[in-house]
Each structure stands twice: as structure tokens, then as C-alpha cells.
């Protein structure tokens, strides 16, 4: 085969290959949607985060505004310290509250932010003070059974 045709074919091959990689990165993966440069991080303490995982979405009013970038355990207060990376485009008041929510009945867990009314906004490194822990299904069932049992014994007493 002639040298120039061979070079042409190899060139086409390499270009298609790199284009495929780029398509995978941009269209299939989340490289284009999640840019770590344009974020600021805040922390929030939770008594219980349930099944929350790193990279879980952070949503406000249902819109994706950031992701969970780290989960640690505070050994002094025995609470979970969750680091949130929020998109710089979205600023939240200082008295915003964070809660661990579940999408759907069996869906993944995410952090929901409810904006407060403070005039100052959250800055890089701030801490969200108002938090609400995850609802643990076993505890809920336990409470329900307990209250049922209490109801039952009340009736017996009467």
C-alpha cells in the first residue's frame, strides 16, 4: 500500500478514536456538567446521614446546585460532618437549612437546601447550622410500634 494512503487511514482511525473518547467524556460522562473550579464548599453537621454517599447530589427546590464532596465523623461530638461543594452561580443565605432527603421511596439519598431569609450569603468554608437528619426507616417503625403498644395498654387500663 502506498505510504500516503496508509497515513491517511491511520489518521482517520486515530481521529475517530479520539472523537469517541471525547464523546464518552462529554456526552456520556459528567465531565462537562461538573466543574470543580467553579464551586465553593460549606460544611454541615448531621446527627445521622443514613445512606448518604460522597458525590450524592445537593438540591434546592429540586434543582441540582452541587454535590457532596466529603463525609467525615467528628469524634468529639459524635456527629457526621458533611462537606458540600456548591456551584458558585448559586448563593444561599446564611440561615439556610440542610436536610438529608430520599428521592422516591427507595431512591438514592440527597441533601436538600431550604433557603432562609438572612441578608448575608454563605461563604467558602462556612457551616450550615440548621440541619435535619435522615429519616431512618427502622427507627420510624420502632416509634410507630411503640406508640401502638402504648395505645393498646391505655385501652386495657380503661
Amino acid at each position, binding site marked *: 500500500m502506498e505510504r500516503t494512503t496508509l497515513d491517511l487511514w491511520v489518521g482517520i482511525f486515530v481521529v475517530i478514536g479520539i472523537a469517541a473518547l471525547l464523546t*464518552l467524556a462529554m456526552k456520556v*460522562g459528567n465531565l462537562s456538567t461538573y466543574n470543580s473550579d467553579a464551586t465553593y464548599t460549606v460544611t454541615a453537621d448531621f446527627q445521622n446521614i443514613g445512606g448518604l454517599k460522597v458525590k450524592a447530589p445537593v438540591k434546592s427546590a429540586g434543582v441540582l446546585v452541587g454535590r457532596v464532596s466529603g463525609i467525615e465523623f467528628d469524634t468529639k461530638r459524635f456527629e457526621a460532618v458533611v462537606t458540600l461543594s456548591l456551584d458558585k452561580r448559586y448563593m444561599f443565605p446564611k440561615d439556610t437549612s440542610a436536610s438529608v432527603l430520599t428521592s422516591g421511596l427507595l431512591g438514592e439519598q440527597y441533601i436538600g437546601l431550604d433557603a432562609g431569609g438572612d441578608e448575608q450569603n454563605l461563604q467558602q468554608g462556612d457551616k450550615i447550622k440548621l440541619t435535619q437528619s435522615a429519616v431512618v426507616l427502622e427507627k420510624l417503625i420502632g416509634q410507630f410500634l411503640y406508640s401502638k403498644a402504648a395505645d393498646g395498654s391505655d385501652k386495657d387500663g380503661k
Partner: protein
Amino acid sequence: MLDHLLRPLRNIGHRVVNSIWRLGYASRFFLMTLLKSGTSFARFSLIMREIYFSGVLSLIIILVSGLFVGMVLGLQGYETLQKYGSEEALGTLVSLSLVRELGPVVAALLFASRAGSAITAEIGLMKATEQIAAMEMMAVDPIARIIGPRFWGGVLSMPLLAAMFSAIGVFGGYLVGVVLIGVDDGAFWSQMQANVDFRNDILNGVIKSVVFGVAVTAIAVFEGYDAPPTAEGVSGATTRTVVMSSLAVLGLDFILTAFMFRGM
């Protein structure tokens, strides 16, 4: 009498020693190929030629199989997912299975049977017709001149082929899922983008395909170089290349997956 009894033991020992010797020979051969690859890269046109033979000529089989694997994944995935009312996860299912597993593995298996066997047969025949010996006579190093370019041509082609396989597979899944069955277009792509991570999924898939490329081409060039210089020897070596490299790909895939996706 004693000699008769000891023969099976001696046979086992002979086999073990032989296989260890062969493994050592293969490792030394691999090391020599790596050490002399500077000479191969100095004549890049040789590597270009091998990329043409093992990469460009594998395009058709890779693209067609990728498309069909993606389409089948779309059909089967939809059948299962719709039972749970989560057809929108089809994009995630198709792309994750392709990018993480099927892309690198199936592309490597096809590459082993399409390009690996050709490399072995070519080198084996060169040896049988004493072309390699002739080169040595002319003070041309056969490892730098013949083995190196073929090895690097395969190693460079493999990740590109695997990426094409995954990309066209996702397109096949899209064709069946969205165009044919009617899964929501936006949900298909957005769920896919939300759940496929660049570092964890795509980059790990690329790493896998590079490892498979090294394994398949290293086995192919070694089997060719080591083939007995007869017609039977070359055919046996070609068969061994396909079998050994397929097994190596599957084994390595398990090990790599265990390391990459353990905690997820």
C-alpha cells in the same frame, strides 16, 4: 520397576519446569521488546503500518459488534427495567455496562481474534521461512525491527478501538431505546450523565483497555516468535494466541474490576 513408578512424577516435574522456563523466556522477551522500543519509535512509520493492520482493519468488526451489543443491551435492559417502572435508567445501564466492562473486554476479545492471530501467523511464517534468521545475519535486530512495531501498534490501537466500541454501543442503545421503543430522550441522556463519572468509569475503562492491549499483543508477538518453524507449529501458535489472550483478558478483567470498583 522403580523407574516405571517414578515416571508419572517425572512427567509432572518436566511439565512444571518447562512451563516456568517458558514463562521466564516470555518475560525476558517482553522486557527486551520494551528495552528496544526506542529503536522502534525512532522509525515511527513502521508503527504506523502496524496501526493500520491491527487498528484500521479491525474497525469494521469493532464498530458492527459495538452497535449490535449496544442495541441488544437496549432491548434487554428495557425489558427488565420496565418491570420496575424505571425505563429512564436505560441510558445509565447501557453506558455503564459498555464503558466499564463490555467495551474494553469485548473489544479486546475481538482484537485478539482479529489482530492478535494475524500478528502471530505473520511472525511465525517469517520465522518458518527464515526471514528472521536472515535479518539477524544482516545485523538487523528482529526484536526492534519486527516485534517492537507490532507490539506498539497493537498497544496504541486497543484503547482507541475500545473507546469506539463503547461510543457506538451507546449510540446503538440510544437507537433502540429512544428511537425505536420511545424512552424519553432527555431522561436517557441526563440520567446517563448524572451517573457516569469521568474518573471512576470512563478513565478506568481506558486503563483496562490499555492493559488488555499490552496483554493481547505481548502474547501474540511472543507466540509468533516462539512458534516451531513448521506449518503445524504456526497454526498451533495462532490457536494458542487466541485462547491464551482471551483467557488473559478475562482473568485480568476480574482482577482490575476487583481493584477499581470494589467500594462502589
